[in-house]
């Protein structure tokens, strides 16, 4: 079966991201959660950054409510993604919307919006294939990681951390055609790095939204706005 470019992107992102479920599962069990709790986090929270933060707080001896608060804070950017996706996904209601919300994460948003703006069907395909693909891979591999525990190696030895960063770079690349979008990307990167040593985890990436508000507030020419 030949898959089109959108589905190929969705599948490679799903596998690369899913592989990280192995370290999440292992870390979660090492932090003191049991296998069921670890799998529940992947099923219910389903947002990598939030989940690593949750088990990080527990592992450091923090309370469960502090873990839930940190996890929620790190997930706030998914709310922004929903706003960006709404014009692509609507009309959508009921169970489909509930599922779309659950699989609204960095990866599904990035693949959806990397497809051409005049090709809504490709954007929706990118969203659903990536969202559901990552959901299946992430949950299956979380279970594997939780069962194997500390017997697994570090995904960084395979370069998977760099692969994840490169995938996001490739996905944001087509949206950087115009000067203003390039300036937003550069400003967001510099601000996030400047805040990394001084702000709590999650703040640096979220703060980058301020750059977008500045860029979109004025009256950029239509062709400067990344569709």
């Amino acid at each position, binding site marked *: 079966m030949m898959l089109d*470019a959108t589905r*190929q*992107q969705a599948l*490679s992102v799903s596998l*690369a991201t899913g592989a990280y479920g192995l370290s999440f599962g292992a870390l979660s069990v090492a932090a003191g959660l049991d296998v069921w*709790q670890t799998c*529940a*986090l992947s099923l*219910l929270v389903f947002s990598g950054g939030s989940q690593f933060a*949750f088990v990080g707080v527990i592992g450091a001896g923090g309370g*469960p*409510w502090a*873990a*839930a608060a940190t*996890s*929620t804070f790190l*997930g706030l950017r*998914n709310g*922004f993604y*929903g*706003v*960006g996706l*709404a014009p692509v996904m609507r009309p959508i209601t009921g169970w489909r*919307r509930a599922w779309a*919300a*659950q699989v609204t994460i*960095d990866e599904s948003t990035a693949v959806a919006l990397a497809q051409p703006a005049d090709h809504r069907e490709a954007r929706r395909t990118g969203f659903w294939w990536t969202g559901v693909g990552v959901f299946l891979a992430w949950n299956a591999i979380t279970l594997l990681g939780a069962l194997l525990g500390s017997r697994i190696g570090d995904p*960084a030895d395979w*370069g998977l*951390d*760099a*692969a994840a*960063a*490169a995938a*996001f*770079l*490739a996905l*944001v*690349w087509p*949206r950087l055609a115009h000067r203003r979008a390039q300036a*937003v*990307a550069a400003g*967001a*990167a510099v601000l996030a*790095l400047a805040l*990394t*040593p001084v702000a709590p*985890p999650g703040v*640096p*990436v979220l*703060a*980058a*939204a301020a*750059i*977008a*508000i500045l*860029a*979109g507030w004025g009256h950029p020419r239509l062709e400067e*706005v*990344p569709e």
Partner: protein
Amino acid sequence: MSPYAWTWAAIVAAGLLAWLTKLAGHAVPESWLEDPRVHRIAAFVTVALLSALVAVQTFASGRALAVDARVAALAVAALLLWRRAPFIVVVAAAAAVAAGLRALGWG
């Protein structure tokens, strides 16, 4: 409740809050989206968040900044993207560069 039960309660609460956050974005009123300013900001927000994510994934090591194998891998990825290489080639090359450098004992 036992500490075990409290952890379960926090997991369910974190899951519910994560889902509500995601749903809130999808449920913004249609009239907001029709506002050209909201539309422009929403378009820039995804570029800003994903770019910030790339920067943090490339340079952050906990709360410190580091130049290691990831930076070389991302430089190769950027070069390949500029040369219009396919997505899967870009991602595989980045993984190979990072893994190779680490196997040689750098970064």
